[in-house]
């Protein structure tokens, strides 16, 4: 075992990102998609904080991550409100059925 280094954290962040991406791309449930987005954001956060700790000094990474969290929360709120509204309307949140922009 080597020292705990930046790479470890980056790998973890990357894995989180990939899982989140996979979720977004493969799930039909809108809420699951949202969950995937959260995972992506978290993966990005991990990277940010890791870099902040190992490479850059100061707090910029952490502040950045903080704002990400805030905005993620806001976006989750609005997104879920929309999903709920859609659900009220058509009683399903299967994105396959919500393709009204389809040509």
């Amino acid at each position, binding site marked *: 075992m080597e020292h705990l280094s930046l790479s470890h954290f980056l790998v973890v962040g990357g894995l989180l990102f990939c899982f989140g991406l996979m979720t977004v*791309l493969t799930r039909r449930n809108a809420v699951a998609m949202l969950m995937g987005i959260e995972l992506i954001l978290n993966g990005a956060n991990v990277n940010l904080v890791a870099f902040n700790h190992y490479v850059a000094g100061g707090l910029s990474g952490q502040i950045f991550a903080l704002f990400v969290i805030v905005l993620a929360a806001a976006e989750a709120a609005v997104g879920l409100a929309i999903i709920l509204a859609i659900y009220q309307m058509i009683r399903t949140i299967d*994105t396959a059925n919500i393709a009204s922009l389809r040509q």
Partner: protein
Amino acid sequence: MEHALQHLGPLAVTPVGYLWLIPFFPLLGAVINTTCGWWLQRKYGKRIIHTIAVASMVCSFAVGCVAFAKMLGLPGEERFLQNTLWTVLAAGPVQVDLAFALDPLGMMMVLVVTGIGTLIHIFSVGYMAEDPAYWRFFAYLNLFIFSMLLLVMGDNFVVMFFGWEGVGLCSYLLIAFWYADPAKAAAGMKAFVVNRIGDFGFILGLFLLFWGLGGAWQETPGGKLAYQPIAAGQQVRIIADRVAADGAIPIHEESVVEVGPTFNFRQLRDQVVVQTTGVAQRLLHQKLFGFSLLAIVGILLFVGAMGKSAQLPLYVWLPDAMAGPTPVSALIHAATMVTAGVYMVARLNFIFALSPTAMGWVALIGALTALLAASIGFFQYDIKKVLAYSTVSQLGFMFIGVGVGAYWAGAYHLLTHAFFKAALFLGSGSVILACHHEQDMRKMGGLGKYMPTTQKTYLWACIAIAGFPIAGGFYSKDEILWKAFSQPHMALLGMPAAWLGPLIYLIGIITATGTAFYMFRSYYMTFTGEYRDGQGHDDAHAHGHTPKESPLSITSVLVVLASGAVLASLIGLPAAWTNQPPILEHFLEPSLPATVHFAEHPRWMEWAFQIIGVSAGAIGWLFARFLYLDGKSPVPAQLLQRWKRGWTVVYNKYYVDEIYEATVVRGSLVLARILSWIDSRLVDGVVNLAGEVTRLFANLDGAIDKYIVDGAVNLVANSTIAAGRGLRRVQTGRIQTYLYGALAGALVVVLLNFLIR
């Protein structure tokens, strides 16, 4: 006797400016009556029509007399009046002018045509008085005179041919004047078609002559003929010493004769007649397909004369031509048109005289025609038909004359015949009018006491035609037959036939007997005995009217013509009587330069032959008198019963018309039908094929346009639509798809970047 000229030099030409007026006046009359005639007649009556027509004739005759006077004032060798209007056609060796020329022969013809023409116009005033198409008749008459004058006065073959065709046309128009009757219209057509056949021969002869003048044919080793033209524009200088009119000092003259192909009569005459040009020698020795060129030319030209002057075998139109009004028969078929053939042969005497074969041919045909026509005339009942066959027969005599080389005699007979035949025809017209358009002699008779003037003039004309010395016919006929007998140099088919002359004489004498017979038969049947008034041979009802003498316009003309027939004897008194050449012969001498050698016979033979001629006429007269005087003799009927079969054949004109119908006419119709089939099937087939091919191409073009061109356009449109349809599927409306796309793109970029680095 030799009729050689002292010198045979080129003609001296006297230019005269007013010759064109002679044909112009009748043309003017014709044009006025054609364009305005119907209207004029309606507005002013018939008077103005005949005034225009007769006045134009009189003016024409007057100018002719002026020209005649001028001609008489010139010395013999210079009697060639010429008037050129303008050049119609000039192309290489061919030069055609609209030009008129009068030499003595032409002058005689012009006076005959205009003089007798005027008389017949006057006659027509009375004869056609009741016809509504009065204006048309006089228009046609004037047109005919115009064409005839062109024919006679033409300076070259082309103008003459124009007139030649014109008289053919006018004869058609006039014969078929009452065209509403199909039989009359058919007669007109027959005349025109038969004429046309003759014209074809004429043109061939003309072309051969033209080519013969312009070069020579040689037989190449391959058996073909090669034509070698002579150099153009050759000229031969003629130097002649001429004795002047006052006889003392010889006049040294230089003149130039152009040698080469030409249509001009004078140039033709000069080339052939003047020995130093060598043209005559060349033509004499020229052979074409083994026959002498001149013989072929002469025969072909004579074919034209055969058609126009109704000789064997093209005479069939003339009897049918009696369907036209009587003045037409008198003018055209007695005095003028039918004489065109004789005139033509006389005009070209120097050509014919060079070829014994042509001469023999002309004379023989003339003799046979004379005999045949006379025989048919024996038994005809229609008075006009009798006269028609008589015309054919007399034309035969004229051709005997010009055939044996007695050119002036033929022309003289033309002159006398014009007078007495016109008198006979117009007399018959007068008779027909008096009997209310009855033409069958069996229904006439005894007209002498009703129509004395007509009877007397008819009698004198019969005397003339029968050949009694007191009237003109004797002199001309006698001269012709005497010369025929004295002509040993004729040939048949290239072989000399010295016996042909006497044979023709024999035929002529027999024909003369026959002529006297049937003419007096017609006279006795018509004018003596009792008026049968419709009670003819097989008719039982009477018409109940008495004939009366015709009006003055008719009888005056008859008197003039009969007198002319008698007085014409004066200008032809034979040398045997007066020890001088006959006046007419001397007059016509400059026109007839041909040297024809007749056999010399003692003077007493000539007297003897004259007596034989008179006797022949007397025999014929007596027979007719015996059989037909007063119509009382039963002998004609008995003879008819006895020789019924022979009589039927002759009466039916030897079935010549029927033979022609079965062979030539049917053949032509069959040929026409075949050609029509060819045209409708083959020619039209080819045309239709072209049409079909065009349609096929058009369809092909359309298909190309529809499928390929439009297809390409449609292809573009359709592919755009398909592309759109395909690309539309990208817009799924699903987030995942878009994300996929974005991510895939980003990955590709990164990977590329990564890998390339």
